[in-house]
């Protein structure tokens, strides 16, 4: 019915009278449709996780809690933050699930989160928690070096961050736009933090980033474009996040990864209760479950998520996760330093480094 109505809306654009009637009829139909809830309590999740993980968690949770209707809206992590911010006066979401802890920190600063300490919180490393229990790490995101195995053999692939500056990769590096990406911000932050620790200022770090910029062929808008361009060999190497590359590998993509030998700046992929959530008790129960052994193993097995809890028995995890955990050499990043300087660093990078190593711009 909807279809026929909508077509009448366009077929007579010259007669606004009829489409208005149609829209009224549709409004009425829609009000009816929306009015008929099924009696379950809705728990609304805003999340940058993909459909694969969210649908899985929804189905599993609803099977065990028939009285709950898990509803999720998937969007970018920046979009989640934006929405929760402008909805603050009238929150629509119960749970903010996923995204780097740096953006959660912004949410905490703006007073958008409600403290809630789930029972599994003690098993999460202290660095992955907010001091006032506003958010907790659920999964670990690992920035890694990516290469196209159809053009680069595993032995030739870059094995540390510095290798990206090798002349071999001149104009072969593709980078996701770092402003838009928590992963890239963390890697760039790691470079600048290292420079600060070793030399006392950021000059060496900016110099490194400028050299990377000269190697970089393009900053791509989104991951989809990054993967397409890597697959089609417009560039051969990149920096990205482990989960996506494992998913691609499963789908016969030629993209493969290597851990950086000097260490990986691991990112906490967190969860939080939204302040003023419409159904806080139900939301707490879901958060409790999302960090449970059952849910973490499920996410690891089906969606390549690495659990943040350190108390899980290794043999419960799938083989890929055990392998990754044995290879992973995490480096400690001072998250306070990153939170304090992140914005200024990226602003300066954007104005003073981006594009300065390549292509002189026309006036």
């Amino acid at each position, binding site marked *: 019915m*909807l279809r026929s109505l*909508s*077509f009448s*809306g*366009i*077929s007579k*654009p010259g*007669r*606004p*009278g009829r*489409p*208005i009637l*149609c*829209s009224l009829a549709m*409004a009425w139909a*829609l009000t009816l*449709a*929306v009015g008929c809830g099924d009696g379950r309590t809705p728990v609304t999740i805003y999340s940058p996780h*993909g*459909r*694969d993980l969210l649908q899985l968690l929804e189905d599993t949770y609803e099977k065990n809690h028939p009285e709950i209707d898990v*509803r999720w*809206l*998937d*969007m970018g992590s*920046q*979009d989640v933050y934006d*929405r929760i911010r*402008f909805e603050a*006066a*009238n929150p*629509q979401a119960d749970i903010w699930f996923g995204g780097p802890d740096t953006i959660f920190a912004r949410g905490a600063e703006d007073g958008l989160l409600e403290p809630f300490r789930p029972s599994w919180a003690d098993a999460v490393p202290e660095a992955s928690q907010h001091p006032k229990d506003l958010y907790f790490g659920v999964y670990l995101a690992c920035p890694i070096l990516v290469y196209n195995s*159809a053009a680069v053999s595993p032995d030739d692939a870059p094995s540390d961050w510095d290798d990206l500056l090798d002349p071999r990769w001149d104009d072969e590096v593709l980078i996701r736009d770092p*402003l*838009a990406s928590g992963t890239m911000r963390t890697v760039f932050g790691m470079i600048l933090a290292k420079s600060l620790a070793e030399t006392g200022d950021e000059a060496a770090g900016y110099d490194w980033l400028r050299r990377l910029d000269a190697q970089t062929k*393009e900053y*791509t*808008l989104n991951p*989809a*474009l990054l*993967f*397409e*361009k890597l*697959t*089609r*060999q*417009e560039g051969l190497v990149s920096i990205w996040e482990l989960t996506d590359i494992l*998913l*691609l590998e499963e*789908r*016969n*993509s*030629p993209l493969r990864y290597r851990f950086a030998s000097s260490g990986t700046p691991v990112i906490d992929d967190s969860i939080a209760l939204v302040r003023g959530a419409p159904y806080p008790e139900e939301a707490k129960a879901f958060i409790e479950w999302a960090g449970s052994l059952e849910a973490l193993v499920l996410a690891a097995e089906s969606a390549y998520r690495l659990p943040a809890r350190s108390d899980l028995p290794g043999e419960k995890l799938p083989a890929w996760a055990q392998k990754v955990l044995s290879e992973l050499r995490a480096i400690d990043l001072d998250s306070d330093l990153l939170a304090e300087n992140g914005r200024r660093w*990226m602003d300066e990078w*954007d104005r003073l480094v*981006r594009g300065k190593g*390549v*292509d002189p*711009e*026309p006036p």
Partner: protein
Amino acid sequence: MTSPRRSGAWALAALLAWLVGYPLLITVGEALGLGSGFTLEFFQTFAQRGGEWLALWRSLWISLASVILSALVGVPLGFFFERAEFPGRRLLGALVALPVALPPLVGVIAFLFLYGESGFVSRALMALFRLEDAPWSLGGPTAILLIHTYSMYVYFYLFTRAALARLDSSLLEASASLGAGGRRTFFRVVLPQLRPALAGASLLTFMTSLASFSAPYIFGGGYRVMTTQIVASKLNGDLEMARVETVMLAAMALVALAVMRLLDPGQDLGGTVRGIPPARRNFQRPLVRWGASILGYVLALVLLLPHLTLMLVSLVPVGTWTVEALPPVLALGNYGALFADPQRLQPMLNSAWMAAVATAGALALGLLSARASLRVKGRLGRLLESLIALPWAIPGTVFAVALATTFSVRAPQFGRFLLIGTPWILPLAYLLRNLPLTGRAAFSGLRQLNPALEEAAASLGAGPWRRFRKVVLPMVRPALAAGGVLAFITALGDFVTSIVLYTLDTRPISIEILASLRLQDTGLAAAYGVLLMTFSTVAFVVWGREKGV
């Protein structure tokens, strides 16, 4: 000038000010730090940064160049498909408008597969001339202009056709009988008659390129314009700077609107009574006739290459196409996945009903406002005209956030209601976003209308409603149809507004495309894109019929 007419116009202006102006005022207020003490600090920072002014200047010249280039492509195409008669004209004429309907997100990927460094064209040239490296890389201002021209000539094309359909053949006959040649008639008679339509299309193109984000972001490389600057500030958490940049961009759009009015003071053109469009040129010689037809097919083919690429991509199973010139495997699996699960088709229905409701509303509101504006004239008329153009003066995301901020609190005494989280906010956003399209179309249609017609109807005893229905509507129908079909298609494929405002019940198709791309399922995303294009094509074909009255 009767007083009920004025009060009606005031009521409309108040409605538009509430829905369009108010959210923007709230944004400006935040840029000035009104909630927490007035400050010009961020404006000062803006003024001191050379990079900001450079970005503003680039936005300006790119937009002006886009207008000129789009006109150079769109107007001749409009003439060709409206004035010449040849086999296949109707269908091809509809297809040529499709660039405006290239779906969001995946459309860019289609472009990449086609014209990118690793695309068909580039690889074909490499094979042909035995080149080592790709002959070009798509980037910089040239690429931005190319894409703007490709996606925006459609405004000129549709508006030109609508205006030509209302051209009065008696004018041409008079001109010819007075001894004017074809060229003279064109420049002295036809072109002036087209002026409202061309002014409308220019304004739309200018505003669209000013607020265009994807093209400069994806293809601009390091070439920063104002919209990409806003997003960079926002992503970096520098919300105050982003607001100041938005205000500056909106200010520039308003200045452009004022300049446009100076250049085209907008007097009515209705000098004639009869409005029978001149007959199409029917080529007698079969050679010319078929030549025109072949030209039509070639034009449509070239312009639809990105769409065809997208169709090809939609047939590629995941992970099978890497460095080959053509995909090695083609299958219908992506469509199977799409139609097997009713949950995956729901977004299509959502987009369809929301676009239909929004278009109907935008047509009604646009027509009423344009009519009121032209009737009351003066300051009030100009206010109405500006309010209609305003939703495009700022980038879509910013407008959506402004709207969401305004309607996220329940404070009826301040005219603020709770709309976020309801299914109504998204259609409302589509409606307001597309108001410039339907409003401009209505303006150009009404200005071609002869007031004597309405006066005649009035003297014969027809009431206002009857005059509107029997005289005005039929006359402005081609223009409204052009604006309506554009509005419908824009709403159908909208991404930037949707990502900010969609709810569980109004999940639109563009979000589904995004979701597929997030899981690296380009083929499925392309299949959604093809579905979207099919809807748009149907809309254009219906439009072609409508126009052919």
